[in-house]
């Protein structure tokens, strides 16, 4: 893609103050968001739409949890691991959360090195992010396996409201799918960085558009969003 970032920032007419100014800024010539490329704008709007999906999932879960007349299983007991003879509550989730948040850190560093056009470091950091993401999904698979062997099913569980299992598998499954898709795209973009596609302006295989280092940042937006969603799932599902 040709440069879609801002090239001319001068020539700004004085804008009216207050609400009129806000309206005038939004309505301004050619682009509503100056300095925002098409790809980045598209990702932000997609994330807004995706927020509504996760919002609806979480609200439905809360409705189910509030309205059920059967007791809700206690998360700190259900999600405890027996390590060295003692039950440690939420230990696996704590590690998973730590891993995912760390991957946000490596992703941010990758974006930074991307803009410095440091091919090697960017690719390595992206692959590291992908590895952390894959670790998260792996631990989630472990958690699912543990709960399934303990008798949790989407339609019921030994401890209380049937909706516990339904919500758990649905919400963590939907989030896990997001992480998995993220890992796949991280690897694809990392490969492009490694090969130098963004330096020589090679055209995309499907889109026939030239990629830019900004793609790393757009990938990062998605990744940070998936992390942020996890924080809400963690708070509302495991800590409540």
């Amino acid at each position, binding site marked *: *893609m*040709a*440069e*879609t970032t*801002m*090239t*001319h920032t001068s*020539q700004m007419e004085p804008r009216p103050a207050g609400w009129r100014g806000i309206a005038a800024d*939004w*309505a*301004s*010539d*050619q*682009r*509503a*968001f*100056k300095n*925002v*490329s*098409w*790809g980045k*704008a*598209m990702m932000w*709007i*997609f994330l*807004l*739409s*995706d927020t*509504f*999906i996760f*919002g*609806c*999932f979480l609200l*439905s879960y809360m*409705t*189910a949890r509030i*309205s*059920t*007349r*059967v007791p809700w299983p206690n998360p700190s007991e259900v999600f405890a691991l027996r390590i060295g003879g003692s039950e440690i509550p939420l230990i696996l989730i704590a590690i998973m959360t730590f891993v995912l948040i760390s991957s946000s850190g490596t992703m941010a560093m990758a974006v930074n090195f991307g803009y410095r056009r440091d091919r090697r470091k960017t690719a390595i950091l992206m692959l590291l992010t992908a590895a952390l993401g894959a670790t998260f999904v792996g631990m989630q698979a472990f958690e699912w396996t543990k709960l399934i062997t303990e008798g949790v099913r*989407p*339609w019921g569980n030994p401890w209380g*409201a*049937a*909706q516990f*299992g*339904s919500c758990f598998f*649905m919400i963590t499954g*939907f989030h896990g799918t997001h992480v998995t898709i993220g890992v796949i795209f991280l690897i694809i973009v990392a490969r492009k960085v490694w090969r130098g596609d963004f330096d020589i302006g090679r055209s995309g295989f*499907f*889109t*026939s*558009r*030239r990629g830019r280092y900004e793609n790393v940042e757009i990938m990062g937006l998605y990744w940070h969003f998936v992390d942020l969603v996890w924080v809400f799932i963690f708070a509302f599902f495991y800590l409540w």
Partner: protein
Amino acid sequence: MVDVTPADAVPPAEVGEVELYHPHSWWTKYVFSQDAKVIAVQYSATATAIGLVALVLSWLMRLQLGFPGTFDFITPEAYYQFITMHGMIMVIYLLTALFLGGFGNYLIPLMVGARDMVFPYVNMLSYWVYLLAVLVLVSSFFAPGGPTGAGWTLYPPQAIMTGTPGGQDWGIILMLSSLILFIIGFTMGGLNYVVTVLQGRTRGMTLMRLPLTVWGIFTATVMALLAFPALFVACVMMLLDRALGTSFFMPAIVEMGQQLQHNGGSPILFQHLFWFFGHPEVYIVALPAFGIVSDLISTHARKNIFGYRMMVWAIIAIGALSFVVWAHHMYVSGMHPYFGFFFATTTLIIAVPTAIKVYNWVLTLWRGDIHLTIPMLFALAFIVTFVNGGLTGLFLGNVVVDVPLSDTMFVVAHFHMVMGVAPILVIFGAIYHWYPKVTGRMLDETLGKFHFWVTFLGAYLIFFPMHYLGLMGIPRRYAELTDMTIMTESAHHLNSFISIMAFIVGFAQMVFLFNLIWSIRHGREAGGNPWRATTLEWQTPQTPPAHGNFGKELPIVYRWAYDYSVPGAKEDFIPQNVPGDFAPSKEPS
């Protein structure tokens, strides 16, 4: 005009030219095309094809209602399946897809002065996923047990129980899967439409110079991106209820003496999710119609739209308000009286921006140079029909009036007038208006007039009597009413009359389809700008526009889209890309 950019003050281009994928073969030119115009035609053709299926289904329903007991093959189960598929296809697979996927794809890039959508490849995928959704939907007709008969609202628990057609067969699974696919496909297209309008406009095209068509489609797309998630979630959860036996929406329930495995779910939760999507959906269909009809009226009355700024803000206000009215579809489901009060209030507030729009259309016509072309006829018919349908909305928006009318034919009459007939009239008008740009030829006028009058008058003859039936208390969604005491002789005659009219109006649509196909080769040559309109799509160097839309140089916009009959100007219209100030006319608003 106040809103005219002097020729020497044109800002430099903020975004450089982008490369377009130029097709190398017949396949990439006409089938897997990344050109928004080809995608638009593909969307429109698919939507029309599936819409014809829904039209036939409505005939079958009317056969049963008008002449009960005459047609053995229309069993009660089949009748419910016809109702369900007719509603779902018309609302989602026809209206939404045609307005946003069809008109959106064709008009947005041309009207904002862009070469194409911002991400043509994703745009192409959008169509193919939509086609897949349609195919999955169609496949349910051939699945064991047939399509779902749960009503277009798919309310649980009945939607996934044995007594409902398709409930324990494939029908409901295919329906939900198809909806999920549709939402995925729509999201890909919708992101394109929004970003193209926000970030891909040509020089001089500020948001406040956009034609109202683009404003309508843009706002509807934003709403769809925020409303479809609720339907997506509802579909996923019901699919889990049906396929895995979870109990999101299924309470403890006894079916034919058997206690089902489900326990503790909330059917009302589904209703909330569904209508959080369902009510904005009404305006997702209506707002593009509002926008298009504004442009039709302005062009064919040779007068600037009255109160442009107010029209834009009314569109935005309607879009925002439509997210806080959803529970007015659930008055009979039972809710706290304060909630009923809240939702009735917000519902009635929507009448304010809507009335502003109607007044502005009428004031645009006021002392205009009205040309009674076919697009104009349809636009006028829309105003009348929309007011009619809107007025019955005031009845149904109030809790105490709604409760007795709920689930009667009055409701059927209301929503068919306001979101069935009215937007379809705009679609017809828009097709007559833009067909010359798409094909280079005019549609036949005589056939068009015939099509208009039969459709317009016929629609009233179909739906007006339904109000009366509804006030009598005739319920909707009943396969057979012959034995009911409220079903008097006259009501029965009325039903037969409605059915006959439905066939006549349906026949007129065949004439329209013939016109569409015949005129591609035999229509009168249109030239580049047959309506002498101002907007950019009429200023393209080729008709139909070539790939890339505008030749070597993108147009530069100097004025708003409504400079008709400007005093002092040579012609009675000044295209948006013509520089120069003329004698000042009146303020736009």
